[in-house]
Each structure stands twice: as C-alpha cells, then as structure tokens.
C-alpha cells in the first residue's frame, strides 16, 4: 500500500530524514515512534505530499506521489497535530466544506456529512461551533474531516496529545474501527501505551534514520506476531549456545543471553519450538522453562533506542 524508498529530506541545514525506506501492507496500523525532532512529522508530511520530496521515492497504492500528487490527495486523509479546524464554523459547516473540497462532484452532501459525523462520533454536537468543543471532541472532528472522502490511507500526527484517558480510549476504538473499514493507518505518537492498543506494526525513527520496523503482537487488531521465546535452563554453556545458533542460524536471532537464560526471536512458526527443545535436550541441557514472551511496545521501543 505504501512504499517508501531512500527518502531524504533536509530542512534548515538539518537532515530531517536520512535515506528512509520501508513498506506498509494494506490494512496495517503503523505506530510511528521516535523522540522529538526524529523526523516523524516530516515523514508524514512527505507521504501526504505536503512536503516536497528532495531525494527518494514514495509510491502509494501504485501511484508515485511525485508524478501524480493530486491523485494521491484523493486516497489520503491527513490529520495534523492541532487538528486543523476553523474555530468559528460549526461542525456541520467544517464537514460540509471538507466534503465539497475533497470529493469530486459530491452527491448527497447531507448524507455524507451525517454518516461521517456518526462514524467519528461527532453527530450529537454537529451544530455546535468548534470553539465550544473540548480537545477530545475537536480531535474527533479533525478525524471526521480526514476520513470524509473515504480515503484508503489515514495519517494521524500526534492525535492523542493533550487528550484525557477517556478520550484516548475512545480514540483507540475509533482507530480500530477505521482499520476494520479497510483503511491503512499511520499514527505518530509519544504515548506508547495507547499505540499498543491498536498498532500492528511499529516504525522507530531517530535523528531522521529509520532504526526499526517491526511487526507487533496485537490481539485486538490481529496483527501478525513476532515470536520472542524465552528459554530458562540450569546452565547454558558457551559451546551449547554457539551450537544452537549455528544449527538454527536461519530462523533464530539471539536477543539476550546469560548463563541460564536465552531470549531469542524465532522467525518461523511458534509450533516449531519443539525442534529447538529436542535439540537442546539432545545436547544435555536441563531445560526448566520455554515459552513465548509478550513484549510490549514500550519494551521494544526502549530496547531499540538504547541499542541504536
């Protein structure tokens, strides 16, 4: 759905993005994480054609955004960090304006506005002016504007910042709802706990470099899992560990090891654990415990940032 290759962007003598490449499949919810100034907003703005691409390529749904940026507008919904709302208009007027300016030859304007307002949960205050709404409500109006033309891709830049816990939960539900409607989402955020609720993939940026792009275990969104296995034994000699690595070289990546524990990533089916187990027993290792470990997004993020 989204293919980014060798994307670089320099702004005010700073390399905001440095040779970033990744691919995102249809229907994913990608958490875009990184410290302040890591290039998250620049990346979202490049994908949404709001920032010119200096080097590299971005292809969205088969469309090269440099070749046909106007075509990309039709399939992308973008929500900026402060939601981009007209404070003096009513919610209805905001949605009407966005629909008229985002949908070609718009028919049934009223119906589209009503349905979008219902989908985004803003129908009950549709005739209120935006400046009377709370931040949580404003954020929902912003999302309603971003999805009114039924885009295939929705980019949300820090949608949860400044929201209270209740509004954050509601946002998580709304994002899952959008995914279920077939949309692909990229959500940048600092609040990792909330991203964990719905993300199927995680991209970590640091100083403009992509340092990690990984799948996540996510029961709510059905994201594919990354198998992290923890093995505890009475003693693990260096020889045994090396032999283990050599034997399963193609399918195992050691993450951590001590004399009693190994934490490794298994690139194959979880059910193949038994092969590893029987190998270790053959080697005379007294296995105490083996099983999948659920690592949360925060663990992954902190580990990656520390490592790289």
């Amino acid at each position, binding site marked *: 759905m989204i293919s980014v290759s060798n994307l670089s962007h*320099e*702004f*005010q*003598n700073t390399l905001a993005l440095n040779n970033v490449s990744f691919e995102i499949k249809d229907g994913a919810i990608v958490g875009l994480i990184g410290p302040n100034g890591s290039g998250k*907003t*620049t990346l979202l*703005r490049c994908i*949404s*054609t*709001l*920032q010119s691409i*200096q080097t590299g390529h971005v292809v969205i749904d088969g469309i090269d955004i440099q070749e046909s*940026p*106007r075509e990309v*507008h*039709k399939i*992308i919904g*973008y929500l*900026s*960090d*402060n*939601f*981009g*709302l*007209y*404070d*003096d*208009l009513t919610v209805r*007027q905001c949605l*009407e*304006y*966005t629909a*008229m*300016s*985002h*949908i*070609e030859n718009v028919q049934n304007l009223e119906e589209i506005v009503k349905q979008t307002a219902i989908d985004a949960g803003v129908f009950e205050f549709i005739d209120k002016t935006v400046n009377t709404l709370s931040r949580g409500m404003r954020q929902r109006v912003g999302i309603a*504007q971003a999805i009114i033309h039924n885009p295939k891709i929705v980019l949300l830049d820090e949608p949860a910042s400044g929201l209270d816990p209740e509004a954050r939960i509601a946002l998580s539900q709304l994002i899952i709802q959008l995914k279920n409607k077939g949309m692909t989402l990229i959500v940048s955020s600092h609040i990792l706990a909330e991203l964990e609720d719905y993300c199927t993939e995680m991209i970590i940026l640091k100083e403009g470099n992509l340092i990690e792009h990984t799948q996540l275990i996510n029961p709510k969104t059905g994201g594919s899992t990354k198998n992290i296995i923890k093995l505890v034994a009475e003693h693990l000699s260096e020889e045994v560990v090396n032999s283990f690595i050599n034997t399963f070289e193609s399918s195992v990546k050691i993450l951590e090891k001590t004399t009693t524990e190994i934490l490794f990533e298994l690139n194959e089916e979880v059910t193949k654990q038994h092969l590893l187990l029987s190998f270790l027993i053959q080697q005379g290792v007294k296995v105490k415990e083996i099983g999948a470990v659920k690592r949360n997004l925060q663990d992954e993020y902190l580990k990656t940032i520390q490592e790289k």
Partner: protein
Amino acid sequence: MSLLEKNPELKKNIWLEISTQRLIMMPLIILMVVLLASLSPVGDTYDKLTNISYFGMVVILLFWGSKVAYSNIIHEYNDRTWDWQRMSILTPKQLMVGKLIGAPIYNWYGAIICLFFVFIFGVMGDNSSLLDIIVNSVSTVLLGISLLSVSILFALLKIREGNGRDKLKTGQIFILLILFSFFFNSSAFSFMFNRLSVSAVNFDTWKIFSENLFYAIWAIIGLHQVLRRELNYKNKSYLWILFLLTSSLVKTMVMMDSLSVFIDNYVFVYFVVLSMQAIAIFYLLLLIEQNEISSLKILLRKIKEKNYTYLNYNTPLWALTFPFIVIGLITSWCLFDINILKFDNLWTKNIFNNIKIGEGIDSFQTLSLLLSLLFFILRDFLIMLFLQTTSKKKRIGSAFILYLFLLYVVFPGFTSTLGSSVGLQLFMPLPIVGSFFYPLIECVIIFLFIRNKFKK
C-alpha cells in the same frame, strides 16, 4: 449550480466573514462618516463627499483588505487548515477566487458601498465626467485586485519558510508589501493621492487605467502560479521571465512620457529599467523567498546532473531574476559607452557628452562601475547565504536588512566624512578604475566563510 456550490472555499470564507451584525455595521459607519463630512462648511459639498467616499474605498479595500488577505493565509497556516486545502481537490482557480474575493469579502462589501457613493456624488457634482468616474473607479478596483493578490502571494511565499510545526507571525512584511506595490505601481499610487488632493500632479486617467490593468492581470497570473505550486501542480519558468520583460516595457513607456524631453532612446531606457527592476526584485526575493542552503545544494546538484525538467519547474525566482540584472546592466553599458545608438535629442547628446567627456569618465571607469555593482550584488547574495548557515533562522530577514543598512548607509557615511575614497570603494560602486576589486575581495572572503561553515 450556484457560484457558492461550485466554490467551497468562497462559501467557507463567507461563512467565516459575514454575519448580520457585520452586514449592518459597515453601511452604517460609512453613512455616518459621509454625513459628518457633509456638515463641514469647507469646499464644494459633492466634491467633498466624492473624495471622502473615495478615501473610504481606498482605506477599506486597499489597506485593510490587503492586511486581511495577507493574514488570512498566515492564520490558515498557523491553524493547519492550509494543510486541508493543499490536500484538497480544489483547483488553483477556485482557491484564488476564494482567497481574493472570499477572505476579504467584508472589505469588498465596504468598497462597493463606497463606490456607490463615489458614483452618486460624482454624478451630482459638476467637476468630473461620468466616464472619468467610471474609469477612475475601475482603476481603483484593479489596484485593489493587484494589492490583494500581491498580499496573498507574499503570504504564500512567507509560509514556505515554515516547517509545518512552528507558527508564523503575521504582518511582519506588510510595510514591505506596500513599498513593493508602490514601486510597481507608482503612478497609480500618485493617482490615488492626487484624487485625495494630497498631490497636485495630474495623471492621465487612461494611462493609469492601462498600467493598473496590466499589473492586475500579472498579479492574478502570479497568484495563480503560486497557488498552483501549493496545490502540487508544476509551474514552468517562462511566465516569470515574461513578466520581467513586459513589466520593464510598461515602465519604460510610462517613464518615457515624462523623460522624452531629456532622452529619446527607448532601447537604452528599457535596459536600464530592466536592470533596475531586476535588482529591486532580486533583493526583495532574497528576503521573502525560501533560499536555504539545502535547496540551493539540490539546485546545484540538478544543474550538475543537467536535469533541465527539474530546473524548469523548481528554479527559485531570484535565480531566474539575476541574469536579467546582468543582461540589463551590460546592454545598457554597451549602449551608453560604446555609443552604438545615436542619441538624436540634442539635450541628451550634450548630457552624455558632458558625462563622458566633460567629466572625464572613460570606458574603463564605467566598466569598473558596472563590475563593482555586479560584485556588490553578488556579495549581498553571499551575505544572505552566510546568514542561512547560522542557527537563528527567524531573524535572517531582519539581520540581512541590518547588514545592508550598515554596508550601504552607515559605513559609507562614516568613510565619506573621513574623506577616504578607498574606504568608500569598499561599500559603494564607484566609477573608479579597479574599484571592482574591493567587492570582489569581499565576495571571496564571505565565500570562504560559507565554505568553512559547510565543512563544519
């Protein structure tokens, strides 16, 4: 389908700008001002009322309207609503109408009311013909369109400085805008002041109308081009070049009307005007266009790669303008110095002979003057680049103006009081043989500074 249904941007701006209260307030205030003016015992009543109505139109449309049109874009950018518009399927034409008519719609409303009074009182009075009133009014509306378009255009160039996160301040370059418009449309402004009895000079109504029409058309084309770029369309460079060439032509025609007594060589005046106009625009663009090092690096890379398609669409306007400074200056120097063209006018002939022979200025001196002028412009460009390498991005414009003030006003003033002609050559282009070495050395020094910064 009504215009509002066809143009959501216009519709939205009407929602934002128009309310019943505001609709009532504007005519009430104008009426009160007109009534107060009518009570004054000085002068002819109808003439007085026409002038005050005209004054109202100028203030409401030209000054207030330009401010509204300019800050509308800055607010849209700061509130991130500009992002929606850029990602919309709105066409540049829709957006242009929405911004030009929609954002200052309240000012247009006030201007129309004032215009109505101008007509009524103008016809009732004895001093002007109906045709004059119509032409003058249309001329002012055209001036309004130019100013409003240029205001929006400036704002659109301003927001390119932004990074999509930080907010921009409004109104910083507003004075510059007025000066710019004044430069481009000086006769129209003189006409405006004349109409307001500020100046005693009478200007030809039709000449002013034609000039206003010319600049209004170009202002609209310019705005359309910038909006096209914002909406991710690709623009070719030829329109800017065409503007520089035709604008110089119109300026020459206007100037020759007054200068014909002194000089009769249109070609010479044209190239002088072309170079002077290009210099003024070049400095203005250095201030308002995005000239950061990174975009310059990309530009240089594309030149090396001979990527003409990229260059055709993305060359900054200052880079397109610079060659016209060189062309204009060199050609006018050739015409002046080598005397290819004959100056038939006796007065001109005498003047030129006096300058060339009487004052004892030879070709080497004029060539030195030309080269030092070019090197000074290059030095100022390098100063701007050097400022771009510093960390305080927000103050680059004001720092640049300060440097120019120091280099062209303070230091020369200081050295001239000391009576040092060599000192003066460091800061000003002078017709002294070899004087171009000074700005050339300055260019080299600043270039080395920039290179050093780059290496770091």
